[in-house]
């Protein structure tokens, strides 16, 4: 289950050591924007140690490496891939070739280290106009790609407009990303909410993202995590419906019927897949013993 992803600055021990206590389903240890050029080397070592020695039990671990137009990305991968992080997030992915370049280097590292091929997944960060246009290409460029992440801040710089709380300027990009991701059969993650101090606005922003079809949302502030988790968790209604779907299928199978309909709608494969996913999330949530924010 990956509803929320929290960026943690890769060179700040204080924040990293508490990383998985903040309630996010995934943490993104950031070697890029959160780290100054003079500290890239130190951050890389710190993040490597953190993954290796701190047990991030409650959160998945992603690492945002530096972009390919920097001198750092290969060292980042060389340092981190041996630790087998769940996902690498390469920034400024603009076309399939970008993804393939990262993919090959990781493959090389995996094979050198005797790690099973394809262990490390990719979540390309789309934050350029070209990247948005090429989103489908990027999503299908490699088997490693498990999701697309939207980067609103840098994107608006490329679009030459202001990044606003309302987000009109990134609306096309959001929708395009979701389309491309779903067409490619992978997940889609929305860009962080801009206002760290707005504890209410985050709900609206997350709800909007959900309504567009995003799987979840990234965040730069721990204060937004609970809201994101809440919004992207299945509602009781969703869960009930999911069980109904599975029940309808079970009954239809028993009766030897092929075509199944529920509440006047035909139940086809995508609906079943969604129902199964919802049930899986519901069970995971139940296991998390009620969650923290009642």
């Amino acid at each position, binding site marked *: 289950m990956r509803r929320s992803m929290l960026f943690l600055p890769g060179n700040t021990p204080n924040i990293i*050591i*508490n990383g998985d*206590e*903040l*309630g996010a389903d995934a943490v993104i240890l950031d070697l890029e924007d959160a780290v100054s050029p003079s500290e890239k080397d130190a951050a890389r070592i710190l993040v490597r140690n953190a993954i290796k020695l*701190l047990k991030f039990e409650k959160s998945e671990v992603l690492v945002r490496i530096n972009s390919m137009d920097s001198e750092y990305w290969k060292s980042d991968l060389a340092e981190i891939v041996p630790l087998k992080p769940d996902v690498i997030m390469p920034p400024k992915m603009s076309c399939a070739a970008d993804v393939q370049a990262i993919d090959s280097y990781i493959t090389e590292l995996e094979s050198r280290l005797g790690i099973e091929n394809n262990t490390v997944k990719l979540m390309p960060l789309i934050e350029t106009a070209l990247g948005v246009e090429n989103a489908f290409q990027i999503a299908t460029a490699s088997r490693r790609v498990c999701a697309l992440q939207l980067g609103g801040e840098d994107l608006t710089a490329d679009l030459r407009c202001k990044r606003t709380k309302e987000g009109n300027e990134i609306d096309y990009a959001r929708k395009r990303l979701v389309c491309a991701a779903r067409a490619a059969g992978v997940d889609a993650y929305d860009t962080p909410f801009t206002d760290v101090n707005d504890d209410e606005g985050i709900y609206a922003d997350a709800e909007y993202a959900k309504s567009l079809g995003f799987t979840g949302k990234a965040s730069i502030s*721990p*204060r937004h*995590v609970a809201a994101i988790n809440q919004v992207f968790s299945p509602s009781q209604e969703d869960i009930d419906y999911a069980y109904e779907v599975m029940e309808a299928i079970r009954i239809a199978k028993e009766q030897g019927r092929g075509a199944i309909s529920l509440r006047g709608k035909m139940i086809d494969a995508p609906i079943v897949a969604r129902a199964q996913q919802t049930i899986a999330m519901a069970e995971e949530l139940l296991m998390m*013993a*009620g969650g*923290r*924010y*009642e």
Partner: protein
Amino acid sequence: MSNKLVKTLREAIELSGLKEGMTVSFHHHLRNGDYVLNMVMEEIAAMNIKGLTVNASSLFDTHLPLIDHARKNVVTKIQTDYMSGAIGRFISQGVMEEPVEFRTHGGRPSAIELGVTPVDVAFIAAPSSDAMGNCTGKYGKSACGSLGYAFPDAMNAKKVVVITDNLMPYPLADWSIPETYVDYVVEVEAIGDPSGIVSGTTKITRDPIGLIMAADAARVIRHSGLLEDGFSFQTGAGGASLAAAKFLKDIMLRENIKGSFGLGGITGYMVDMLKAGCFQSLLDVQCFDLEAVESIRSNPNHQEISATHYASPSAKSAVVDSLDVVILGATEIDTDFNVNVHTDSNGYIMGGSGGHSDTAAGAKLSMIIAPLSRARLPIVTDRVTCISTPGKDIDVLVTQKGIAVNPRNRELGERLRQAGLPIVDIHELKRIAERITGVPQRIEKGERAVAKVIYRDGTLLDTIYSV
């Protein structure tokens, strides 16, 4: 009846008959903005009076000059319920011959009333007073709200001097301490700095870990079986404690629970709860912020109570005895649930019980909220550096990595486990912490006893040694 109004502080001290070896007392309602204690002690020092015992309900960094007075033997003994780090450091280094006597906010009035710690001259800083000594903390440029800790001094000291910076025409409307206890009144330019007296507003923590613990604390209360109509509650003024109050308020409003009273240590958050109908009344022994001061002035349901009424174990009854839930802090807690709020892990004095032991003893549910470790130091140890509150009075420890319930309270443990809360044995919490931080080496205790921790009933709970 002659006028009690005296022109100078010196005159008041002279008239009071203060002599070597006597005890003077002060309340701490002006907190770190207080000028009075320093003013009085400076005058006493200038008058060459030595060997005094200072009985101050609490001491803050602003009272650092007390150390100089101690070095010059103006002060030879200190009795207090709380001592901030700057002063505590000197005490821990052994600057005084006689050990400091730490009591609690309930134990202090009890000891004064029973004659264990008799006060010769009480100096009462009063934000407003008339010339006969009817005074209050609710009004004036240096308003501090409740004068709860001043009552026992006013009512039991041999001589009482009121010091005010807002002299009002007789009779003062809405007095707290009546003139019947007062010997002299002195007007000064300023009794304190308003910005140090009350914070503009106390704020809930923004720290994400603090918020998580606060949410868990609210859940513990919710599933404790105590959260129903008639519920009563006290919380500390720290960020996470206040956040817990906010989460609790949300739950109470959602479930339409009408509590009876809020107690404390009152902040704007408690006032919000009163206004929202979560409580019928607030019982206030100390105001922490401007909102609380304004509320105690204007809302008849927000009542001032004396320290005796608040927590004295020798009163026929005290409010803490009727308290359902209290949220407290700790610098250390051991596997027997004994709590330390007097020293840091190195043994330096930087606190004191305040109302800790009293509320823990009285409340049906006493809960500690604390992060599992602070800067590599686990909060759970084998044995606390100093016992401030005995483990038998502590029910729950809430950390971000789990909740420990005192085995004495088996029923509560079961309830909370059933409710799906992450209940962990306290020994396991210690192990979890040490796995992350490493196992800290034990620190050797110093040779000299620098302070005694006297429990609310007058017995010696622990001794603090030099560092």
